Protein backbone atom coordinates (compact mmCIF):
# COMPACT_ATOMS: atom_id res chain seq x y z
CA UNK A 1 0.00 0.00 0.00
CA UNK A 2 1.39 3.44 -0.93
CA UNK A 3 2.83 5.35 2.06
CA UNK A 4 1.34 8.53 3.58
CA UNK A 5 2.47 11.86 2.10
CA UNK A 6 2.74 14.79 4.52
CA UNK A 7 1.20 18.06 3.32
CA UNK A 8 1.39 21.69 4.52
CA UNK A 9 -0.39 22.65 7.72
CA UNK A 10 -0.03 19.25 9.37
CA UNK A 11 -2.36 17.61 6.89
CA UNK A 12 -1.60 14.13 5.55
CA UNK A 13 -2.48 12.51 2.21
CA UNK A 14 -3.33 8.86 2.82
CA UNK A 15 -4.19 6.06 0.37
CA UNK A 16 -7.74 5.36 1.54
CA UNK A 17 -9.43 3.16 -1.11
CA UNK A 18 -7.67 0.50 -3.22
CA UNK A 19 -8.45 0.32 -6.95
CA UNK A 20 -10.82 -2.65 -6.68
CA UNK A 21 -12.98 -0.87 -4.10
CA UNK A 22 -13.16 2.28 -6.23
CA UNK A 23 -13.94 0.36 -9.39
CA UNK A 24 -16.65 -1.79 -7.81
CA UNK A 25 -18.13 1.29 -6.11
CA UNK A 26 -18.76 3.07 -9.42
CA UNK A 27 -19.90 -0.03 -11.31
CA UNK A 28 -22.28 -0.69 -8.43
CA UNK A 29 -23.65 2.86 -8.62
CA UNK A 30 -24.22 2.60 -12.38
CA UNK A 31 -25.94 -0.79 -12.12
CA UNK A 32 -28.11 0.30 -9.19
CA UNK A 33 -29.31 3.38 -11.07
CA UNK A 34 -30.26 1.26 -14.11
CA UNK A 35 -31.84 -1.41 -11.90
CA UNK A 36 -33.91 1.21 -10.06
CA UNK A 37 -35.19 2.92 -13.22
CA UNK A 38 -35.86 -0.31 -15.13
CA UNK A 39 -37.39 -1.78 -11.95
CA UNK A 40 -39.91 1.07 -11.87
CA UNK A 41 -40.66 0.41 -15.56
CA UNK A 42 -41.48 -3.21 -14.58
CA UNK A 43 -43.60 -2.06 -11.61
CA UNK A 44 -45.43 0.32 -14.00
CA UNK A 45 -46.98 -2.78 -15.65
CA UNK A 46 -48.85 -3.61 -12.42
CA UNK A 47 -48.39 -0.92 -9.77
CA UNK A 48 -49.83 -2.94 -6.89
CA UNK A 49 -47.98 -4.76 -4.10
CA UNK A 50 -49.36 -7.65 -2.04
CA UNK A 51 -48.40 -10.04 0.75
CA UNK A 52 -48.52 -13.83 0.32
CA UNK A 53 -48.14 -16.20 -2.65
CA UNK A 54 -50.88 -14.77 -4.85
CA UNK A 55 -52.29 -11.32 -5.39
CA UNK A 56 -55.59 -10.43 -3.72
CA UNK A 57 -56.35 -7.66 -6.17
CA UNK A 58 -58.95 -5.92 -3.99
CA UNK A 59 -56.62 -5.87 -0.98
CA UNK A 60 -53.19 -4.57 -1.96
CA UNK A 61 -50.60 -3.55 0.62
CA UNK A 62 -49.79 -0.59 -1.59
CA UNK A 63 -50.92 0.59 -5.02
CA UNK A 64 -50.75 3.52 -7.38
CA UNK A 65 -53.95 4.35 -9.23
CA UNK A 66 -55.40 7.00 -11.50
CA UNK A 67 -59.09 7.83 -11.38
CA UNK A 68 -61.45 10.38 -12.76
CA UNK A 69 -62.47 13.11 -10.33
CA UNK A 70 -65.95 14.68 -10.37
CA UNK A 71 -64.75 17.56 -12.55
CA UNK A 72 -63.52 15.12 -15.20
CA UNK A 73 -59.83 15.56 -14.34
CA UNK A 74 -57.53 12.57 -13.84
CA UNK A 75 -56.19 12.34 -10.29
CA UNK A 76 -53.26 10.15 -9.24
CA UNK A 77 -53.32 8.41 -5.88
CA UNK A 78 -50.93 6.37 -3.78
CA UNK A 79 -52.49 3.89 -1.37
CA UNK A 80 -50.35 2.41 1.41
CA UNK A 81 -51.69 0.18 4.19
CA UNK A 82 -55.06 1.86 4.64
CA UNK A 83 -54.16 5.45 3.78
CA UNK A 84 -54.61 7.19 0.40
CA UNK A 85 -52.53 10.18 -0.67
CA UNK A 86 -53.29 12.43 -3.64
CA UNK A 87 -50.10 12.29 -5.72
CA UNK A 88 -51.31 13.96 -8.94
CA UNK A 89 -48.31 15.30 -10.89
CA UNK A 90 -45.96 12.62 -9.59
CA UNK A 91 -47.52 9.18 -9.03
CA UNK A 92 -50.55 7.92 -10.98
CA UNK A 93 -50.91 11.01 -13.15
CA UNK A 94 -47.94 13.03 -14.40
CA UNK A 95 -46.77 15.11 -17.34
CA UNK A 96 -45.18 13.28 -20.26
CA UNK A 97 -42.43 14.52 -22.63
CA UNK A 98 -45.16 16.28 -24.66
CA UNK A 99 -46.12 18.32 -21.59
CA UNK A 100 -49.58 16.76 -21.34
CA UNK A 101 -50.84 15.07 -18.16
CA UNK A 102 -51.13 11.32 -18.65
CA UNK A 103 -52.10 8.33 -16.57
CA UNK A 104 -48.90 6.54 -15.58
CA UNK A 105 -47.77 5.13 -12.24
CA UNK A 106 -44.33 6.77 -12.46
CA UNK A 107 -43.20 9.92 -14.29
CA UNK A 108 -41.27 9.20 -17.50
CA UNK A 109 -37.97 10.52 -16.06
CA UNK A 110 -38.11 7.83 -13.36
CA UNK A 111 -38.39 4.85 -15.71
CA UNK A 112 -36.10 3.13 -18.18
CA UNK A 113 -37.00 3.25 -21.00
CA UNK A 114 -38.86 6.55 -20.45
CA UNK A 115 -41.83 5.39 -22.57
CA UNK A 116 -43.91 2.42 -21.47
CA UNK A 117 -42.30 -0.88 -22.57
CA UNK A 118 -42.26 -3.79 -20.14
CA UNK A 119 -40.14 -6.06 -22.39
CA UNK A 120 -37.40 -3.46 -22.73
CA UNK A 121 -37.49 -2.66 -19.02
CA UNK A 122 -36.99 -6.36 -18.26
CA UNK A 123 -34.11 -6.59 -20.75
CA UNK A 124 -32.25 -3.72 -19.03
CA UNK A 125 -33.09 -5.06 -15.57
CA UNK A 126 -31.76 -8.58 -16.17
CA UNK A 127 -28.59 -7.45 -17.93
CA UNK A 128 -27.67 -5.04 -15.17
CA UNK A 129 -28.71 -7.56 -12.52
CA UNK A 130 -25.89 -9.77 -13.83
CA UNK A 131 -23.45 -6.86 -13.74
CA UNK A 132 -24.59 -6.01 -10.21
CA UNK A 133 -24.20 -9.61 -8.97
CA UNK A 134 -20.79 -10.20 -10.59
CA UNK A 135 -19.52 -6.82 -9.39
CA UNK A 136 -20.78 -7.48 -5.86
CA UNK A 137 -19.18 -10.94 -5.86
CA UNK A 138 -15.85 -9.42 -6.94
CA UNK A 139 -16.05 -6.88 -4.08
CA UNK A 140 -16.96 -9.48 -1.46
CA UNK A 141 -14.45 -12.14 -2.53
CA UNK A 142 -11.54 -9.70 -2.86
CA UNK A 143 -12.44 -8.09 0.47
CA UNK A 144 -12.61 -11.42 2.26
CA UNK A 145 -9.46 -12.89 0.68
CA UNK A 146 -7.42 -9.77 1.52
CA UNK A 147 -9.11 -9.69 4.99
CA UNK A 148 -9.77 -6.04 4.25
CA UNK A 149 -13.56 -6.34 4.60
CA UNK A 150 -13.69 -7.56 8.22
CA UNK A 151 -10.91 -5.14 9.18
CA UNK A 152 -12.70 -2.14 7.66
CA UNK A 153 -16.33 -3.04 8.35
CA UNK A 154 -16.45 -4.49 11.87
CA UNK A 155 -16.73 -1.84 14.58
CA UNK A 156 -13.95 -2.00 17.16
CA UNK A 157 -14.70 -2.35 20.84
CA UNK A 158 -13.43 1.20 21.46
CA UNK A 159 -15.70 2.54 18.71
CA UNK A 160 -18.76 0.81 20.15
CA UNK A 161 -17.91 2.14 23.62
CA UNK A 162 -18.00 5.71 22.31
CA UNK A 163 -21.03 5.36 20.06
CA UNK A 164 -22.95 8.03 21.99
CA UNK A 165 -20.27 10.65 21.37
CA UNK A 166 -20.12 9.60 17.72
CA UNK A 167 -23.85 10.18 17.29
CA UNK A 168 -23.61 13.63 18.91
CA UNK A 169 -20.67 14.55 16.65
CA UNK A 170 -22.62 13.43 13.59
CA UNK A 171 -25.67 15.48 14.54
CA UNK A 172 -23.38 18.53 14.79
CA UNK A 173 -21.85 17.48 11.42
CA UNK A 174 -18.42 17.22 13.06
CA UNK A 175 -16.44 14.48 11.41
CA UNK A 176 -13.37 12.69 12.79
CA UNK A 177 -9.92 14.08 12.10
CA UNK A 178 -6.41 12.76 12.62
CA UNK A 179 -5.90 9.02 13.19
CA UNK A 180 -9.66 8.49 13.65
CA UNK A 181 -10.26 9.52 10.04
CA UNK A 182 -8.16 6.62 8.70
CA UNK A 183 -11.01 4.19 9.15
CA UNK A 184 -14.80 4.19 8.77
CA UNK A 185 -16.43 5.65 11.85
CA UNK A 186 -18.74 3.48 13.93
CA UNK A 187 -21.98 4.85 12.41
CA UNK A 188 -20.69 4.29 8.89
CA UNK A 189 -19.82 0.72 9.79
CA UNK A 190 -23.22 0.11 11.41
CA UNK A 191 -24.94 1.31 8.22
CA UNK A 192 -22.60 -0.24 5.64
CA UNK A 193 -22.75 -3.67 7.30
CA UNK A 194 -26.53 -4.20 6.92
CA UNK A 195 -26.49 -2.57 3.47
CA UNK A 196 -23.78 -4.91 2.18
CA UNK A 197 -24.80 -8.06 4.05
CA UNK A 198 -28.59 -7.71 4.34
CA UNK A 199 -30.14 -5.26 1.84
CA UNK A 200 -28.05 -6.12 -1.24
CA UNK A 201 -28.33 -9.92 -0.76
CA UNK A 202 -32.06 -9.47 -0.07
CA UNK A 203 -32.42 -7.74 -3.44
CA UNK A 204 -30.90 -10.78 -5.15
CA UNK A 205 -32.85 -13.37 -3.15
CA UNK A 206 -36.22 -11.64 -3.54
CA UNK A 207 -35.47 -11.18 -7.25
CA UNK A 208 -34.65 -14.87 -7.71
CA UNK A 209 -37.79 -15.85 -5.77
CA UNK A 210 -39.97 -14.15 -8.38
CA UNK A 211 -38.57 -16.40 -11.15
CA UNK A 212 -40.98 -19.31 -11.72
CA UNK A 213 -38.10 -21.52 -12.95
CA UNK A 214 -35.92 -20.87 -9.89
CA UNK A 215 -39.02 -21.34 -7.72
CA UNK A 216 -39.57 -24.82 -9.22
CA UNK A 217 -36.14 -25.92 -8.00
CA UNK A 218 -35.91 -23.94 -4.74
CA UNK A 219 -39.40 -23.89 -3.13
CA UNK A 220 -37.74 -22.89 0.15
CA UNK A 221 -37.01 -19.34 -1.04
CA UNK A 222 -40.64 -18.34 -1.46
CA UNK A 223 -41.61 -20.22 1.73
CA UNK A 224 -38.97 -18.30 3.73
CA UNK A 225 -39.96 -14.95 2.25
CA UNK A 226 -43.70 -15.54 2.75
CA UNK A 227 -44.65 -16.11 -0.90
CA UNK A 228 -43.91 -14.72 -4.34
CA UNK A 229 -45.97 -11.56 -3.88
CA UNK A 230 -44.30 -10.95 -0.51
CA UNK A 231 -40.93 -11.37 -2.21
CA UNK A 232 -41.98 -8.81 -4.82
CA UNK A 233 -43.09 -6.36 -2.11
CA UNK A 234 -39.85 -6.92 -0.15
CA UNK A 235 -37.87 -6.43 -3.39
CA UNK A 236 -39.49 -2.99 -3.69
CA UNK A 237 -39.11 -2.11 0.01
CA UNK A 238 -35.43 -3.03 0.17
CA UNK A 239 -34.84 -1.10 -3.07
CA UNK A 240 -36.51 1.89 -1.37
CA UNK A 241 -34.24 1.43 1.66
CA UNK A 242 -31.24 1.45 -0.70
CA UNK A 243 -32.44 4.70 -2.28
CA UNK A 244 -32.74 6.20 1.21
CA UNK A 245 -29.23 4.97 2.03
CA UNK A 246 -27.88 6.51 -1.20
CA UNK A 247 -29.52 9.87 -0.41
CA UNK A 248 -28.04 9.98 3.11
CA UNK A 249 -24.71 8.79 1.70
CA UNK A 250 -24.58 11.69 -0.78
CA UNK A 251 -25.66 14.22 1.87
CA UNK A 252 -22.85 12.96 4.12
CA UNK A 253 -20.32 13.24 1.29
CA UNK A 254 -21.29 16.89 0.90
CA UNK A 255 -21.24 17.52 4.64
CA UNK A 256 -17.83 15.87 5.11
CA UNK A 257 -16.14 17.65 2.18
CA UNK A 258 -17.21 16.67 -1.34
CA UNK A 259 -13.83 17.33 -3.02
CA UNK A 260 -11.83 15.24 -0.57
CA UNK A 261 -14.41 12.43 -0.54
CA UNK A 262 -14.76 12.34 -4.33
CA UNK A 263 -10.98 12.42 -4.80
CA UNK A 264 -10.60 9.46 -2.46
CA UNK A 265 -13.19 7.39 -4.36
CA UNK A 266 -11.66 8.32 -7.75
CA UNK A 267 -7.89 8.37 -7.12
CA UNK A 268 -7.78 6.60 -3.77
CA UNK A 269 -6.06 9.52 -2.00
CA UNK A 270 -7.73 11.14 0.99
CA UNK A 271 -6.57 14.14 3.03
CA UNK A 272 -6.78 13.93 6.80
CA UNK A 273 -6.54 17.08 8.90
CA UNK A 274 -4.66 17.26 12.18
CA UNK A 275 -6.58 16.36 15.31
CA UNK A 276 -8.65 19.23 16.68
CA UNK A 277 -7.83 20.54 20.13
CA UNK A 278 -10.98 20.07 22.14
CA UNK A 279 -11.67 22.66 24.80
Amino acid at each position, binding site marked *: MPADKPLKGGRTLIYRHPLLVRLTHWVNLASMVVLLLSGLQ*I*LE*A*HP*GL*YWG*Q*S*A*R*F*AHPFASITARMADNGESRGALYVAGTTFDTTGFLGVSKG*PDGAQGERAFP*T*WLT*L*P*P*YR*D*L*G*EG*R*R*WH*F*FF*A*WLFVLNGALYLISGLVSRRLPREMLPTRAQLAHIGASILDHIRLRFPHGEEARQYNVLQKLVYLPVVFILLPLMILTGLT*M*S*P*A*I*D*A*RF*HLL*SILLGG*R*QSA*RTLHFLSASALVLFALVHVVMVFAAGPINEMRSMITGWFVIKPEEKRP
Partner: protein
Amino acid sequence: MTGPASRRTWLKAGLTSALGLAVGACAKVTQSPTVNNVLDGAETLNRRLHGLLVGRTALAREYDHRDISPDFRANGTTNPDSDEYQALVTSGFKDWKLQVGGLVERPFSLSLDELRAAPARSQITRHDCVEGWSSIAQWRGARLGPLLERAGLKPQARYIAFFCADTLELTLDGTGDYYETIAIADAFHPQTILAYEMNGQPLPVAHGAPIRLRLERQLGYKMAKYVMRIEAIDNYAALGRGKGGYWEDRGYQWYAGI
Protein backbone atom coordinates in the same frame (compact mmCIF):
# COMPACT_ATOMS: atom_id res chain seq x y z
CA MET B 1 -35.38 42.86 -14.40
CA THR B 2 -34.10 39.57 -12.98
CA GLY B 3 -35.86 39.38 -9.67
CA PRO B 4 -35.92 36.17 -7.62
CA ALA B 5 -39.23 35.14 -9.21
CA SER B 6 -37.92 35.25 -12.77
CA ARG B 7 -34.68 33.57 -11.66
CA ARG B 8 -36.78 30.78 -10.23
CA THR B 9 -38.67 30.52 -13.51
CA TRP B 10 -35.40 30.31 -15.42
CA LEU B 11 -34.05 27.70 -13.04
CA LYS B 12 -37.22 25.66 -13.36
CA ALA B 13 -37.20 25.95 -17.16
CA GLY B 14 -33.51 24.99 -17.22
CA LEU B 15 -34.05 21.94 -15.01
CA THR B 16 -37.11 20.84 -16.98
CA SER B 17 -35.33 21.08 -20.32
CA ALA B 18 -32.23 19.30 -18.93
CA LEU B 19 -34.50 16.52 -17.72
CA GLY B 20 -36.27 16.52 -21.08
CA LEU B 21 -32.94 16.19 -22.91
CA ALA B 22 -31.87 13.34 -20.60
CA VAL B 23 -35.18 11.52 -21.19
CA GLY B 24 -34.82 12.06 -24.94
CA ALA B 25 -31.24 10.74 -24.94
CA CYS B 26 -32.41 7.78 -22.88
CA ALA B 27 -35.13 6.96 -25.40
CA LYS B 28 -32.52 7.09 -28.22
CA VAL B 29 -30.26 4.63 -26.41
CA THR B 30 -33.07 2.25 -25.48
CA GLN B 31 -34.33 2.15 -29.08
CA SER B 32 -30.94 1.26 -30.58
CA PRO B 33 -30.92 -2.30 -32.00
CA THR B 34 -27.22 -2.76 -31.08
CA VAL B 35 -27.89 -1.90 -27.45
CA ASN B 36 -30.83 -4.30 -27.36
CA ASN B 37 -28.74 -7.11 -28.87
CA VAL B 38 -26.11 -6.67 -26.15
CA LEU B 39 -28.79 -6.64 -23.45
CA ASP B 40 -30.29 -9.82 -24.95
CA GLY B 41 -27.07 -11.59 -23.95
CA ALA B 42 -28.45 -11.73 -20.42
CA GLU B 43 -31.45 -13.75 -21.65
CA THR B 44 -29.15 -16.46 -23.02
CA LEU B 45 -27.25 -16.44 -19.74
CA ASN B 46 -30.48 -16.80 -17.74
CA ARG B 47 -31.70 -19.69 -19.91
CA ARG B 48 -28.39 -21.56 -19.68
CA LEU B 49 -28.02 -21.00 -15.93
CA HIS B 50 -31.60 -22.13 -15.31
CA GLY B 51 -30.93 -25.18 -17.48
CA LEU B 52 -28.00 -26.10 -15.23
CA LEU B 53 -29.55 -25.07 -11.93
CA VAL B 54 -33.18 -26.08 -12.33
CA GLY B 55 -32.85 -29.06 -14.70
CA ARG B 56 -35.49 -30.61 -16.89
CA THR B 57 -37.55 -32.44 -14.31
CA ALA B 58 -37.89 -30.17 -11.25
CA LEU B 59 -41.60 -29.71 -10.56
CA ALA B 60 -43.27 -26.37 -10.00
CA ARG B 61 -44.64 -26.11 -6.46
CA GLU B 62 -48.18 -27.42 -6.09
CA TYR B 63 -50.62 -25.88 -3.63
CA ASP B 64 -53.59 -26.82 -1.50
CA HIS B 65 -57.27 -26.28 -2.37
CA ARG B 66 -57.51 -23.48 0.20
CA ASP B 67 -54.78 -21.54 -1.67
CA ILE B 68 -56.91 -21.20 -4.83
CA SER B 69 -57.42 -17.53 -5.79
CA PRO B 70 -61.05 -16.34 -5.76
CA ASP B 71 -60.03 -13.51 -8.13
CA PHE B 72 -57.85 -15.20 -10.80
CA ARG B 73 -57.25 -12.49 -13.37
CA ALA B 74 -57.82 -13.08 -17.11
CA ASN B 75 -55.29 -11.24 -19.28
CA GLY B 76 -54.89 -10.68 -23.02
CA THR B 77 -57.91 -11.73 -25.08
CA THR B 78 -60.88 -12.65 -22.89
CA ASN B 79 -63.37 -13.44 -25.66
CA PRO B 80 -62.12 -13.96 -29.25
CA ASP B 81 -64.59 -12.21 -31.53
CA SER B 82 -64.17 -14.22 -34.75
CA ASP B 83 -67.35 -15.83 -36.10
CA GLU B 84 -65.67 -19.26 -36.20
CA TYR B 85 -64.74 -19.09 -32.52
CA GLN B 86 -68.15 -17.73 -31.49
CA ALA B 87 -69.81 -20.59 -33.40
CA LEU B 88 -67.65 -23.06 -31.42
CA VAL B 89 -68.73 -21.42 -28.14
CA THR B 90 -72.40 -21.61 -29.15
CA SER B 91 -72.14 -25.33 -29.89
CA GLY B 92 -70.25 -26.01 -26.66
CA PHE B 93 -67.09 -26.85 -28.68
CA LYS B 94 -68.85 -29.94 -30.10
CA ASP B 95 -67.19 -29.40 -33.50
CA TRP B 96 -63.82 -28.25 -32.13
CA LYS B 97 -60.87 -30.43 -33.09
CA LEU B 98 -57.28 -30.05 -31.98
CA GLN B 99 -54.90 -30.55 -34.91
CA VAL B 100 -51.53 -32.12 -34.11
CA GLY B 101 -49.07 -31.98 -37.00
CA GLY B 102 -45.91 -30.46 -38.41
CA LEU B 103 -42.70 -32.49 -38.14
CA VAL B 104 -44.43 -35.66 -36.92
CA GLU B 105 -44.76 -39.18 -38.33
CA ARG B 106 -48.52 -39.51 -37.72
CA PRO B 107 -50.51 -36.25 -37.69
CA PHE B 108 -53.93 -36.57 -36.07
CA SER B 109 -56.80 -34.54 -34.70
CA LEU B 110 -58.77 -34.92 -31.48
CA SER B 111 -62.20 -33.84 -30.30
CA LEU B 112 -62.61 -32.40 -26.81
CA ASP B 113 -64.05 -35.72 -25.58
CA GLU B 114 -61.09 -37.63 -27.06
CA LEU B 115 -58.69 -35.20 -25.41
CA ARG B 116 -60.45 -35.73 -22.08
CA ALA B 117 -59.85 -39.47 -22.47
CA ALA B 118 -56.08 -38.99 -23.02
CA PRO B 119 -53.52 -39.42 -20.17
CA ALA B 120 -54.28 -36.50 -17.84
CA ARG B 121 -52.85 -34.65 -14.87
CA SER B 122 -54.43 -32.38 -12.28
CA GLN B 123 -52.40 -29.74 -10.46
CA ILE B 124 -52.91 -26.67 -8.26
CA THR B 125 -50.26 -24.22 -9.37
CA ARG B 126 -49.39 -20.55 -9.25
CA HIS B 127 -49.72 -18.52 -12.44
CA ASP B 128 -47.07 -15.79 -12.60
CA CYS B 129 -47.85 -12.96 -14.99
CA VAL B 130 -45.02 -11.01 -16.60
CA GLU B 131 -46.69 -7.90 -15.17
CA GLY B 132 -45.81 -9.08 -11.67
CA TRP B 133 -49.03 -10.49 -10.17
CA SER B 134 -49.75 -14.13 -9.36
CA SER B 135 -52.96 -16.15 -9.00
CA ILE B 136 -53.46 -19.79 -8.00
CA ALA B 137 -55.85 -22.26 -9.66
CA GLN B 138 -56.42 -25.96 -10.11
CA TRP B 139 -55.90 -27.17 -13.64
CA ARG B 140 -56.74 -30.50 -15.23
CA GLY B 141 -55.66 -31.38 -18.72
CA ALA B 142 -54.09 -33.85 -21.13
CA ARG B 143 -50.34 -34.25 -20.72
CA LEU B 144 -48.61 -32.91 -23.81
CA GLY B 145 -45.76 -35.47 -23.76
CA PRO B 146 -47.87 -38.59 -24.46
CA LEU B 147 -49.78 -36.76 -27.24
CA LEU B 148 -46.49 -35.91 -28.96
CA GLU B 149 -45.28 -39.50 -28.53
CA ARG B 150 -48.47 -40.68 -30.18
CA ALA B 151 -47.80 -38.37 -33.14
CA GLY B 152 -44.13 -39.47 -33.26
CA LEU B 153 -41.75 -36.49 -33.49
CA LYS B 154 -39.36 -36.45 -36.42
CA PRO B 155 -35.70 -36.15 -35.38
CA GLN B 156 -35.38 -32.57 -36.67
CA ALA B 157 -38.22 -31.27 -34.45
CA ARG B 158 -36.89 -28.77 -31.88
CA TYR B 159 -39.89 -26.72 -30.81
CA ILE B 160 -43.61 -27.13 -30.36
CA ALA B 161 -45.72 -24.29 -31.77
CA PHE B 162 -49.24 -23.44 -30.57
CA PHE B 163 -51.64 -21.61 -32.88
CA CYS B 164 -54.59 -19.89 -31.25
CA ALA B 165 -58.06 -18.63 -32.14
CA ASP B 166 -57.47 -15.13 -30.80
CA THR B 167 -56.19 -12.09 -32.65
CA LEU B 168 -54.73 -9.67 -30.11
CA GLU B 169 -53.76 -7.00 -32.62
CA LEU B 170 -55.46 -6.43 -35.97
CA THR B 171 -52.82 -6.51 -38.73
CA LEU B 172 -53.05 -6.92 -42.49
CA ASP B 173 -50.52 -9.77 -42.60
CA GLY B 174 -51.98 -11.83 -39.74
CA THR B 175 -49.01 -11.25 -37.42
CA GLY B 176 -51.48 -10.15 -34.74
CA ASP B 177 -52.72 -13.72 -34.27
CA TYR B 178 -51.64 -15.25 -30.97
CA TYR B 179 -49.10 -18.05 -31.18
CA GLU B 180 -46.35 -19.41 -28.96
CA THR B 181 -43.39 -21.77 -29.26
CA ILE B 182 -41.77 -23.83 -26.50
CA ALA B 183 -38.75 -26.13 -26.35
CA ILE B 184 -39.29 -29.88 -26.83
CA ALA B 185 -37.83 -30.61 -23.36
CA ASP B 186 -40.44 -28.32 -21.76
CA ALA B 187 -43.21 -29.94 -23.82
CA PHE B 188 -42.35 -33.30 -22.21
CA HIS B 189 -42.23 -31.91 -18.64
CA PRO B 190 -44.77 -33.86 -16.53
CA GLN B 191 -46.67 -30.67 -15.53
CA THR B 192 -47.00 -29.43 -19.13
CA ILE B 193 -50.66 -30.01 -19.94
CA LEU B 194 -53.37 -28.84 -22.29
CA ALA B 195 -55.82 -27.74 -19.63
CA TYR B 196 -59.55 -28.18 -20.29
CA GLU B 197 -60.63 -27.69 -16.66
CA MET B 198 -60.03 -24.85 -14.21
CA ASN B 199 -61.03 -25.26 -10.55
CA GLY B 200 -63.12 -28.33 -11.40
CA GLN B 201 -65.18 -26.57 -14.12
CA PRO B 202 -64.80 -26.60 -17.91
CA LEU B 203 -62.19 -23.96 -18.80
CA PRO B 204 -64.04 -20.59 -19.02
CA VAL B 205 -63.87 -18.59 -22.25
CA ALA B 206 -61.98 -15.77 -20.47
CA HIS B 207 -59.21 -18.23 -19.60
CA GLY B 208 -58.89 -19.83 -23.05
CA ALA B 209 -61.74 -22.31 -23.69
CA PRO B 210 -61.68 -25.02 -24.80
CA ILE B 211 -57.99 -25.55 -23.92
CA ARG B 212 -54.97 -23.51 -22.81
CA LEU B 213 -51.38 -24.56 -22.38
CA ARG B 214 -49.99 -24.84 -18.86
CA LEU B 215 -46.21 -24.45 -18.81
CA GLU B 216 -45.76 -24.13 -15.09
CA ARG B 217 -42.14 -23.05 -14.86
CA GLN B 218 -42.50 -20.02 -17.09
CA LEU B 219 -44.52 -16.79 -17.17
CA GLY B 220 -48.15 -16.51 -18.24
CA TYR B 221 -47.62 -15.20 -21.77
CA LYS B 222 -46.07 -18.56 -22.78
CA MET B 223 -49.30 -20.35 -21.80
CA ALA B 224 -51.29 -19.88 -25.00
CA LYS B 225 -55.09 -19.77 -24.65
CA TYR B 226 -57.70 -20.87 -27.26
CA VAL B 227 -55.26 -23.44 -28.77
CA MET B 228 -56.52 -24.77 -32.11
CA ARG B 229 -53.45 -26.38 -33.67
CA ILE B 230 -50.13 -27.78 -32.47
CA GLU B 231 -47.13 -28.27 -34.72
CA ALA B 232 -43.66 -29.68 -34.21
CA ILE B 233 -41.17 -27.36 -35.94
CA ASP B 234 -37.40 -27.07 -36.38
CA ASN B 235 -37.27 -23.25 -36.05
CA TYR B 236 -39.69 -20.38 -35.57
CA ALA B 237 -38.17 -17.81 -37.95
CA ALA B 238 -41.04 -18.21 -40.43
CA LEU B 239 -43.83 -17.74 -37.88
CA GLY B 240 -45.33 -14.32 -37.13
CA ARG B 241 -42.48 -11.81 -37.04
CA GLY B 242 -39.95 -14.52 -36.31
CA LYS B 243 -39.28 -14.17 -32.58
CA GLY B 244 -41.21 -17.25 -31.44
CA GLY B 245 -44.45 -15.82 -30.12
CA TYR B 246 -46.98 -13.00 -30.21
CA TRP B 247 -45.40 -11.16 -27.27
CA GLU B 248 -41.86 -12.14 -28.24
CA ASP B 249 -42.52 -10.40 -31.58
CA ARG B 250 -43.34 -7.31 -29.49
CA GLY B 251 -40.19 -7.34 -27.37
CA TYR B 252 -40.77 -9.93 -24.65
CA GLN B 253 -38.09 -12.56 -23.96
CA TRP B 254 -38.57 -15.99 -25.59
CA TYR B 255 -37.31 -17.66 -22.42
CA ALA B 256 -39.86 -16.70 -19.77
CA GLY B 257 -38.46 -18.54 -16.75
CA ILE B 258 -37.65 -15.25 -15.06
